[in-house]
């Protein structure tokens, strides 16, 4: 049995009464356990769609997604998701949101564990002063941090994160990037991470997957041969800057292609 996530010839066509749209075509990607994959590409190229097939929310119309030898047929607690739209439960406070997963029968946590773990992650995302606030009282970036803490708290084997740091200010984003890497050093996890930030992708991942649009497909896979642990200093090393420039070039090309194909 092959460990990890294997995406075999995945295609996905959305169809509705209005017509059909080919969002993904012939995606092949093998993700080893413990890998950190970043998906990069122009808006609308199918990053969220691909993430949703791994999460099990969408069934591919061609090919299959296999995890640890088993075909993925639906969502499960082994794959934690941070949604692009946050999906923080509006009827629960910040603390109750973070504790939500821990209180489910599946996670079998004692009440001391629930308190300890939730406090740890509420502190990590710096929301201690807001732990009794409802989501309507929070800014977009604060909601995003609640969503991150909620998914970290249940400690899933795989983390699927859709632009999780997109709404954060630069300082908080750097802090969240570094703390994510620190968490991964302690607990080996597989991460698939969608971002628009080239630097973010290069800094976090073992491989960057650059996608092209219409139909969504993989344009290039770039390995990041910079050893972990990485920290703020990594971003200024010549090696890192060279890799980053290489990714930047491909991303810009894809963007230009999309614009000219759309006739803008």
């Amino acid at each position, binding site marked *: 049995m092959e460990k990890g996530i294997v995406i075999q010839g995945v295609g996905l066509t959305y169809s509705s009464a209005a017509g059909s749209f080919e969002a993904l075509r012939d995606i092949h990607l093998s993700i080893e356990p413990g890998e950190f994959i970043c998906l990069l590409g122009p808006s609308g190229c199918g990053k969220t769609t691909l993430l949703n097939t791994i*999460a099990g929310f969408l069934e591919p119309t061609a090919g299959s997604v296999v995890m640890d030898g088993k075909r993925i047929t639906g969502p*499960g607690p082994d794959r934690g998701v941070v949604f692009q739209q946050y999906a923080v439960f*509006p009827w629960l406070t910040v603390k109750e949101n973070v504790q939500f997963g821990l209180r489910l029968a*599946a996670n079998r946590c004692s009440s001391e564990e629930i308190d300890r773990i939730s406090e740890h992650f509420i502190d990590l995302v710096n929301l201690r002063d807001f732990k009794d606030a409802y*989501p309507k009282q929070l800014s977009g970036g604060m909601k995003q941090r609640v969503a991150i803490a909620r998914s970290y708290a249940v400690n899933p084997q795989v983390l699927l994160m859709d632009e999780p740091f997109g709404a954060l200010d630069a300082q908080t984003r750097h802090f969240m990037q570094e703390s994510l890497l620190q968490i991964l050093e302690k607990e080996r996890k597989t991460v698939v991470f969608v971002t628009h930030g080239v630097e973010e992708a290069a800094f976090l991942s073992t491989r960057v997957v650059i996608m092209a649009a219409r139909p969504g497909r993989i344009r290039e896979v770039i390995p990041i041969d910079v050893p972990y642990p990485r920290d703020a200093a990594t971003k200024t090393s010549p090696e890192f800057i060279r890799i980053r420039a290489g990714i930047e070039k491909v991303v810009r090309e894809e963007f230009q292609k999309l614009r000219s194909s759309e006739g803008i």
Partner: protein
Amino acid sequence: MAGANPGIEGRFKRKQRRERIERRVYFVASFALLMLIWEACRAVGLINPKLFPSIAAVAQSCVAQLRDGSLQQHMYASFLRVLVSFSIGIVLAVIFGFLIGWFRVVRLLADPGINFFRALPPIALIPLMIIFFGIGETSKIIVLSYASFFPALVVIYQALVSLDPIYVRAARTLGATNMEMFRKIILPQLVPHIITACRVSLGVCWATLVAAELIAAQRGIGAMMVEAQNFFQMPPLVLGIILIGIISLVMDAIVRLIETKATQWQEKMSN
């Protein structure tokens, strides 16, 4: 929240209090104005004073009926009917609302029927129910339950099918079972809608009550009014009208109070 400025908070509280007092003053003024118009119409002769009693006469009749206990009995009878029927209607509406919202087959099967029955005024059932069950309590309870059932059913099942699926997805990835999904994700989102359903149903139920009591009842506010009509006693008749209005106002205020408590988390368009 942490670090809020006490000065600003105090000013906000004062402003809220001022607005509350303002609202109360206008509330009283509004009814005072209505009473003024009432008496003025009689004084000017716009309505025949013989056909429409004075405020004092209505108040007198109210006190007299309170003294001999008949008013309490009428109100108790009406309340009991509404309470029992409303409870039956809401409980059934919640159960059926879930079945219809959850199972596609039930939805497809029930949808045309629902649209037929919700368009049918409850009063239209009264003659049939009287033939089936006689003029006793049963026929009234059935008509009133029916009256509160359909509006609530429609509110609940439409709320259920328009829930955002993203929360269900999020809960699945955190490991929720079907039962946990129902208790912790679906139900909390439905609470505000169930309360709205209660409000609508209570209104319809109360409105139908008088019609049901007008036809055949010994006790109840509607019965009191029919009796007054038969003996051409205007004060109790008008008293009945006023009571019905006041009671529905009070009931609505109570439900609204529960609503604000239960839906603190919701984002409101306005207050």
